[in-house]
């Protein structure tokens, strides 16, 4: 195991040396890797693509909506609703928004979305200034660039907060607790991984089970007699782990532990049902708890409720503080998503767009962008200062169930299509794993770069390392071997 870690480090070093870049993860960004000379033009790629996909309706004698995509000039002229392409800005280009199913009506109508490769091609063509041929001059737009350019399209370097080479917190001398087992696995809903170590925590039966992803062994067990953990998280510094959950229809609770000692730091009880979502602010002093339709802000030290935020119209299920603690997002089962500032607890914005339960929120480590995942199948990205939408894409047909954001800003998602995917900042698919045997319910990013753990409906966990096609480990926590 030790050797594996060494290898991993060596690989990383190699990548560093090869690319002469400070960003560890640049190696995995295909946009960055792609040489700038690969021009996407109407004549070479886009024209044929349109003829294959679009000109059946948007072409010929009477093109639909007066939009003729069969010729370059006509495509530039747009249709009855105006221009459909804005050079350099896919997110203001109606053609791209409809084709990527970010806006309706989805195009092509009543058909699955274009494959990611084709969408990427269209986006690159727009980004590159809508070239007609290789020798054309890129077009420019007088319009201001969309928000995305202002928040920065991607993180150039992972956020490390100057930790240097300090190892992450690990269990040491935890009280010995026997693992409780059952005959069958339970769908994984509580899953977390430490951002700075190889610890993976998963909900058990009245317990939290903590594994070491490197050794594959159980590191320790944290008792959670309050009931069933429904959500697990590590704090950003990896020092605290907390669980939200309870007994369905009876009581709810949120409990936090010190990762090193296994000691309880706080325990907050709540209401008459399971707490489905919670978040600990970076200082560790305040906890946001989804209590039915209300978000309760609780002081961890005293258990006192400081504030009750009552704007949601359905159960609050997904909560996340920004890494700097200045912002909070709360999402509910009806698709409602709200951005708050945490000084006066005023609502900054209602993040409208999701049409199904918000299943997860993930902050980019620099705190400027937050992504939300939903049962409607989409991932949406929002700018954190004012809550304006940045972009969105269809991530998993049937619904996204889990989302996580890496130190470099890449996103990992899992969903009902039984697949786990990773995405770059632009929403382009980087990697795909699966399909698995059943729906994939949660994803967590292990504090070892490139390591990914997913949980599924059958209660199995799978650990992938880097781009290896097969999982390095598969196990069912808490299931008695037969």
């Amino acid at each position, binding site marked *: 195991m030790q050797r594996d870690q060494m290898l991993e480090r060596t690989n990383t070093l190699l990548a560093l040396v090869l690319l002469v870049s400070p960003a560890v993860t640049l190696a995995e960004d295909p946009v960055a890797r792609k040489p700038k000379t690969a021009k996407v033009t109407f004549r070479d790629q886009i024209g044929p693509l349109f003829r294959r996909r679009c000109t059946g309706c948007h072409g010929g004698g009477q093109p639909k909506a007066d939009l003729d995509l069969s010729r370059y000039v006509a495509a530039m002229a747009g249709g009855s609703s105006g221009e459909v392409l804005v050079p350099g800005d896919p997110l203001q280009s109606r053609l791209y928004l409809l084709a990527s199913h970010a806006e309706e009506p989805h195009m092509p109508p009543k058909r699955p979305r274009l494959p990611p490769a084709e969408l990427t091609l269209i986006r690159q063509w727009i980004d590159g200034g809508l070239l007609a041929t290789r020798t054309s001059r890129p077009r420019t737009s007088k319009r201001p660039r969309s928000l995305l350019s202002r928040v920065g399209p991607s993180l150039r370097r992972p956020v490390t907060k100057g930790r240097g080479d300090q190892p992450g917190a690990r269990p040491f001398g935890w009280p010995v607790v026997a693992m409780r087992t*059952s005959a069958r696995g339970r769908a994984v809903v509580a899953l977390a991984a430490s951002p700075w170590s190889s610890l993976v925590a998963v909900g058990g039966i009245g317990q939290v089970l903590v594994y070491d992803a490197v050794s594959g062994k159980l590191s320790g067990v944290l008792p959670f007699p309050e009931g069933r953990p429904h959500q697990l998280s590590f704090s950003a510094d990896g020092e605290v782990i907390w669980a939200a959950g309870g007994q*369905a*229809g009876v009581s709810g609770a949120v409990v936090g532990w010190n990762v090193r000692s296994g000691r309880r730091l706080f325990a907050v009880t709540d209401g008459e049902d399971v707490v489905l979502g919670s978040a600990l602010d970076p200082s560790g002093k305040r906890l946001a708890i989804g209590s039915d339709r209300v978000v309760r802000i609780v002081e961890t030290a005293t258990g006192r409720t400081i504030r009750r935020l009552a704007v949601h119209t359905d159960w609050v299920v997904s909560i996340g503080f920004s890494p700097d603690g200045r912002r909070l997002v709360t999402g509910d*089962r009806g698709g409602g998503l709200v951005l708050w500032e945490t000084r006066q607890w005023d609502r900054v914005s209602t993040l409208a767009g999701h049409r199904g339960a918000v299943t997860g929120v993930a902050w980019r480590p620099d705190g400027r962008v937050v992504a939300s995942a939903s049962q409607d199948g989409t991932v949406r990205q929002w700018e954190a200062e004012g809550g304006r939408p940045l972009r969105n894409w269809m991530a998993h047909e049937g619904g996204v169930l889990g989302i996580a954001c890496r130190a470099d800003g890449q996103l990992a998602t899992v969903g009902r299509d039984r697949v786990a995917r990773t995405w770059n900042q632009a929403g382009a698919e980087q990697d795909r794993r699966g399909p698995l045997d059943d729906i994939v319910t949660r994803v967590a990013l292990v504090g070892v770069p490139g390591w990914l753990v997913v949980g599924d409906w059958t209660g199995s966990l799978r650990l992938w390392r880097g781009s290896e096609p097969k999982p390095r480990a598969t196990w069912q926590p808490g299931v008695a071997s037969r």
Partner: protein
Amino acid sequence: MIPGFVHRKRTDCLVSLGGLVVALCCSTAIADAPVIRVYPSRVTLDGAADRQRVIVQSVSADGRTRDLTSRARLVASVAHRVRIVGGVLEPLADGALDLVVTVDGRRLVVPVTVRHADMTSPVRFGLDVMPVLTKGGCNSGSCHGASRGQRGFRLSVFGFDPAGDHFRITREFVGRRIDLARPAESLLLTKPSEQVVHGGGQRFDAHSEMYRVLLKWLEQGAPRDPQDVSRVKRLEVFPSEVVLSGTRPGEDAAAESSHRLVVRAHYDNGTDRDVTGLTVFTSTNTASAVVSADGVVSGQRRGESFVMAMFGEHNVGLPVIVVPGGPVAAFPDLPVANRVDELIHRKLRKLRVVPSPLCDDSTFLRRVYLDTIGLLPQPSEYDRFIADKRTDKRKRLVDELLKRPEFTDLWVMKWAELLQVRNVKGGFFGWLRKRLLANVPMDRMVRELLTAEGGFFRDPPAQYFRQVGKPKILAENVAQVFMGTRIQCAQCHNHPFDRWTMNDYYGFAAFFAQLGSKRNWEDTREQIVFNKGSGEVRHPVDDRVMPPKFLGGEVPKLGRRDRRAVLAEWLTADGNPWFSRNLANIAWAQFFGRGIVDQVDDVRLSNPPSNPELLDFLANRLVADGYDFRKLIRVITLSFAYQRATEPTASNLDDRRNFSHASFRRLRAEVLHDCLCQATGVPSRLGGFPLGTRAVQLPVAAMSTEFLDTFGRSDRETVCSCEVDVQPNLSQALHLINGATTWGKIERGEVLKRLMTADDEPATVISALYVRCLARQPTVRERTRLLAAVAAADDRNEIYQELFWALLNSKEFLFNH
């Protein structure tokens, strides 16, 4: 339903002889020993979990049934093969045995087979779990079956979408509704058993069969059903009949009597299963009989009810009769005119209801005129009929009326409503009229109609397929008009009170999926309907193509034939019970004001015929007579049942369904209008049609008058029988009293003038007005008082006008009775 195991003691004849002797001393003693039946007649226990409840019933000679189960002793001939717990058989070891039932000194034997006694079969989602959700009321429209569910948890209403329900229970809200690591802690169990707070209260407790089914399914890992899982083929309910009666005399005395029901499901793999515990029971008339959740039906007031048993998507019904207890008054020996009377009397005898006597000649005359030709008898016709002394004069009258063109007019109108003929253009109305005038057999006419194609003008019946692109609407209409059943519910969910599932609905709609239409380019006003030979209907839940399937029948082999032709052939085949019964019922309703199934287009499991044997007889008769409507109507009108008086007897006062007396029926708008014109001798001008056109003859739906609207003329918007409104209301009364129609016609008419010129003797004029309006002579009291009024009047014309107006406003005029 298979009749129960019947066993009569060999000494039956002796007992009845003895009974006869006893009857001399004590008139109410049992004249005949009751028949004892054990249900089911044969038991097969398959698998360790299989159970079968046994019930014992006695049927006395007068038809009353009693549940003797609690009194009966059940003993297995091979004791180690089954265990008997509270009347329920449980398997112990494989093999055959006899179940010996001893009750009241009688001994009956039920053969029992035990198979796979040591084999446990898995709980299936569709077969076991879904019925629990229905039985628990979980998926009812007011709970999780509501379109938005409850607290975010939705189930398909009455379980039309098992796959969707499986998804919502297991995967929609991951980690919430079920917990496979600790199945008993799943909300799916703790909520309905109210171990935790549940808005819907406790649906079942932790010891119930329903709880056990859900728990076992969760312990198995909440699996979906395999593809080859066996399905329920049919459902049966035991016993086959229940006639509850109390032990004391009096109307409410049946309240103490009850009877246990057992429901058994038969699967397509040949096995059966006692599903009583997972069945939803409902009673259609809780004033007479209530049924408990576990299937015990209890008598209330005298009357009838129909108990429905619903298991999963299957329904089955059982008629329950409740009669007063105590000694049974002798049922009079009633004369019968034909088979109709025999069948009605048989039912009335069961209900202990004595019918009213026959009505007098003048009442019959008016009734049969109005029902058969939609007009009043002319005074001359009245005189002739009253003067006729022949004993078969009623028969002669009916034969005469059936030949009159007005008879055809009346039925053309009814068919035009059913087929939604809304204008004269294109000749659809003319086609219909021609067919009925020629007395074309109904089955042939319907075949012509359903297979019609071509241009609307050249082939008028093609207009029936105006809504060519809407196979669902066409299917709904055909089902409602020609089969008398409403399948609309099944478009979105399985019909909760009938047998129709979404599969049935979309399978039936598929018959109309291949219709095409185009414009006739030679005459662009004309549309042409044709068979495209392509096009399908898809199931909305899983989008699969539905093969055409007869409603309540099989999936036919189509070959390359027009699907409609295959359908028409099936529908009008002699063996098809729907078509002939429906037509017979429509005919019956015209003469009794309500169908044997009522409404006539609402045949449904939970709305059974009040007299199935009667309906079957009429249907068979119609088929035997080559679908000749006139012959059927002759049978109906010549029955004594049709000729009964409206005045009730002591026992039939409450009867509305069994034709023990004639009922009051408000004349429908067109007939009332025509009668008013006829009585006053002043025809109305109706739209652009020639003066003298009767309202019954109007081919146009849109053409109407205030009078016709007020009295509820159908605008032929839908095929529903409810389009014709015969409910009396205030505006109708006001219209008659104050409106221009009545008074205007009296003033403009020459009736009075002619009467007074002919003979101004007051008694003659009064009598003539009565005959003219009410088809009867005034009573002595009426005559005396009217004569006095006439004598006191200054202006005779005025007093006669007042009388005329009063008669036309009388309820007697407005109603057929």
